[in-house]
Structures are given as C-alpha cells and as structure tokens.
C-alpha cells in the first residue's frame, strides 16, 4: 500500500444524508472507483455505487469528486495531494436514490422528446450513400457515453430545478445538432423545436459541459453554438428569412 487516504463519502437517501469520514489504504496507480470498492469491501458493505466497465466507456460511475463532476474510474488518486481530503458525493443536479447513486430518469425522458431521424421517402433502406466529410461532424457527437456529467454541471438545471421542464440539456443539444447536420434527415423544423421545445435559448454558453466531458466532445463550440446560429437563421435573422422566402432555399427551414 502506497498511501493512506482520507475520504469523505456522502451517504444517505432522498430524504436525508451527510458526509462520512473514512480512512483507507490506496495503491499506486489506483483510481477513485478502486478506493470506493475497497471501502465497500472493508468498511461500508452497503455503500451504493453505480459502475460497470471501469474503463471510462460506459458512463456509469459519474459522481462529484472534490466538487467536480467526474468519472470515478478515470480519476487517478495520485492527482490529489498527500494530505488532501477527497470528498465524494453523488451528482448534485439529480435526486438521490441511495448514497452515490442518483436517479437519472430526467435524461431518459428528455431523450424520448427528441424527434428521431426521418429517412427520405424516395430512398429505400440500404440505398442511402453519404460521403465521409458530410458525416464527420456528427461522428464527434456519437462519442457520447451518456455519463450525464454535462447535464449535471449545466447550471440551467443544476441551479434551477424549475427549468427541467423546458430545458433538455447539453447532451440532447448534441443529439439535435447531430440530426440537424445529418445530410439525409428530412425533418424540417428541428431548429425551431430546438429553440421552442428543448430550450436551446436558455443556454448561456458558459462551457461547463465542455469542461467536464470525459470524451472531450467540444459540446459548446461544435454543437450548441452551431445550433444557436442555425436557429438565428430561421428565427432571428430577417435577411436570411427573406432570402429563404425569395429563393426557397433547401436546407434552411
């Protein structure tokens, strides 16, 4: 064992709870999830934690470590100082189920509200052909592992529970951007729905979603801002609107 770690782990449920002090041994090269498992095995047998792949690809072990939304399996213990106390809490934007496990159903409801890809009527399945440069923008967004750290850190819902009704969050803005940039998607009013139904206008682009993304997706620069600009094209730019009416441009509406 290389060092002794001092932890504070939040334990409780949706009604009550608090931080509990724990001291545990840690080996070189271990991540926070390893330490949580050791605590679970030796001191807190009923500690609830959600995890799966331990490789930063399933997005299950999202939690807040020293106040920052992180994947526990990708957070090296050595990143913290010798005397530093590591505080581990559940995601603070969502209701707690037990200990470090939160109820993420908000995200799945929002996922269902995003209207799916619509295939061109004149193209039979299997006949669609797209070039790489037409889909590579969207491929960045397909890296999303749905850890929901971006949703957790987004202050629009983290700090304002009432906005959850009208705001989909950054994870679903990249989904909307992916569909809107899709060369074959034929759903025409995706931009309007992004603004009016999914609350794109609520985002004030403070880029916290990009900062916490473990897949390093440039959520704000490559998805949210392009979507905001596309919304301006159809809702707020009188010249673009006029141009679209006169020339009946394809792809604007």
């Amino acid at each position, binding site marked *: 064992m290389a060092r002794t770690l001092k932890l504070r782990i*939040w334990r*409780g449920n*949706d009604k*009550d*709870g*608090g931080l509990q002090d724990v001291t545990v041994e840690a080996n070189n090269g271990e991540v926070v999830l390893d330490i949580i498992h050791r605590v679970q095995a030796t001191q807190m047998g009923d500690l609830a934690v959600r995890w799966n792949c331990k490789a930063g690809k399933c997005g299950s072990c999202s939690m*807040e470590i*020293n*106040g*920052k939304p992180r994947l526990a399996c990708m957070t090296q213990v050595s990143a913290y100082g010798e005397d530093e106390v590591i*505080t581990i*809490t*559940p995601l*603070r*934007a969502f*209701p*707690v189920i037990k200990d470090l496990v939160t*109820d993420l159903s908000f995200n799945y409801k929002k996922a269902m509200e995003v209207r799916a890809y619509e295939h061109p009527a004149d193209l039979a399945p299997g006949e669609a052909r797209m*070039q790489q*440069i*037409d889909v590579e923008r969207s491929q960045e967004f397909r890296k999303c592992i749905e850890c929901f750290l971006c949703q*957790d*850190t987004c*202050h*629009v819902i*983290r*700090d*304002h*529970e*009432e*906005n959850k009704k009208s705001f989909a969050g950054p994870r679903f803005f990249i989904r909307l951007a992916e569909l*809107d*940039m*899709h*060369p074959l998607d034929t759903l025409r009013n995706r931009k309007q729905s992004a603004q009016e139904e999914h*609350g794109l*206008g*609520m*985002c*004030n*682009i*403070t*880029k*916290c979603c990009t*900062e*916490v993304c473990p897949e390093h997706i440039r959520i704000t*620069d490559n998805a949210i*801002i*392009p979507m*905001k*600009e*596309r*919304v*301006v*094209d159809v*809702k*707020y*730019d009188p010249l673009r609107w006029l141009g679209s009416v006169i020339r009946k441009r394809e*792809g*604007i509406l």
Partner: protein
Amino acid sequence: MKTGKGNLRGFKSHALRQFCAKSHSCGRFHLYKRAPCLALNVLGHETSPMAIDTSGNGVFSEGRAKLTARTLRTDKWWLQPFITVLVLFSFIVYATFRAFENGKYFAQPLISPFYSPCLASNCVKDSTSFVGTFFGTYHVLGMTVSPSLFILIFPLAFRMTCYYYRKAYYRSFWMSPPACAVAEPHTKYTGETRAPLILQNGHRYAFYAGLVFNVFLTIDAVGAFRNEKGQWGHMSIGTLVLLANATFLWLYSASCHTCRHTVGGRLRNFSQHPIRYKLWTWVSILNHKHQQFAWVSLFGVALADLYVRQVSGHSIRNLYFF
C-alpha cells in the same frame, strides 16, 4: 436548507456574519444589500456557504443530496472570474476615458483605433477617413461630442455579443454560474430567451460591422508606412503597432463562431460545396483559439491606442526604422 451561524464561522467579522445570517432568514433582500455576503462566498467553501435563501432550489432542491455547501470544489475556481473582472473592468474604464477624452488620437500618420474611422466634422485635421465626414459637430451640456462615440458602439456590440465574451462576463460579472459546479446566487434564470439578452442573437450583424472596422484599421496600418510629412516608403514602431492591431483583429474576427457558421457551418452537405468546406476547415482551426484571439486583440486595441496617445501627446517619439 437551514443555514445557521455555524456555517458562517469562516467569516472574520461578527457584524457581517450577523448581517448575512439575517439576510438569509429574511430571504428576499435586494442583491446589492447581499453584496458583502456574495463577496464572501467567492472565497467560500463547504464550511462557509453563502447566506442567501436557496431553500428548495438548485442544488438544495428536494430529493437531491443533502449538503449545505454551494460547492465542494477545493481548487481556486474563483481566480479566473476574478481576473476576468479585473481585466475587463480596467479596459472598460480606459476605453470610456479615451472615448470621452476627444483628443490625442492622431499623430500623422498614426490614428488611434478608438477614433478610426473619424467621421465627424470636428475630427483633427487629416485624421478623417477616405469616406468623408457623416456627422457634424455636436454639443451636449456644453461639451463637444467626441467622434469616437459615433463608432465605438459597433466594435463594442461585436465583443458584447461574442460567444466567448458572453461566457466570460456571464461567469465573472453575473456569476451565472461563477464557475462550473459552483451554485449561482440567482433565484430565477431565463437565459437568452427574453429581452435584453435575446438580442445576443444579433451577433452576426455585429460581426459584419466588425469586419468593416477591420478594413478601416487595416487601411490605417497601411497608411502608417508614411512619415510625418505624409511621404510613403517609411516604417516606424507605430507602423508595427497598427499592423499588429489590425492582424489581431482579423484573427479575432476570422475565428468567430458566426464566421465559422457563415462560411460553411450552416451547410448539411460539405461534399457539394468543396470551397466552403475548405474555408470552414480553416476557420475551425482558428476557432479553437478564439478565446486567445479575443484577449490578444483586446489588449492590442488598448495598447495601440495608448501608443498613439503618447505619441500625439509628445510623451514619446515615434521612432522610424527608415
């Protein structure tokens, strides 16, 4: 959430502790009255959360993990917004002073970027641009209106609506949020859906206006290849200063998110528009550095103006290389 005095023990002043505790219990104190508590919260941590009524909202909502702290971050998250406030506020003060100073903005062949293009009839001799004068000489409260006031609104609008600066000032001035995973002090939030912030959607028009100014400032930089008598073929430190300023401004504009959208970002089929795809690729490379260009160009404008001011006021000499 209950926030008792015990949570405020990190505060040094007993009176301030009492005030903050009182403002919390009263719940609806005006923001300015809570300012001391807000300031203390900037340095707050788990043991000293801000004494603002947040019960039932945000991270203190029903069902979420019961914690009294607004953030559990232990790093210096407050440093970046603090520096941003300091720098932007200093720039605003300096730019306001210079805009109203109405003097020391021209020293043949150099003109300050705060006064270019000089479009008023009261501009200093030879400082007007090739497009002539659109405005006369106006007086308000016995003071002559500075020519700078007719033009500065456009570059100001470009920066105010810029996607990077929006991040910077929403975080540092409006604390919405002050940093990631640090609870903001506001009880309501509507984002950019209502006036006046819905006007941020007009960023592209401010961008177009910014491009026009870049053209004027580039012409000024080219014109700086003259000497004090107006003869071409000379180069001074002032030439380099104006050239650097124009270059930084072009980089800032070219890396803009709206520029990226305009040149090709709005397309769905890059394969059908190879030239626009290439342009979009180049702008995307610059776009990665938009934040840096935003700051460098801001300093560039202020320093170029300061240099011209010092030369015009005869505090320093504009040294010529040839």
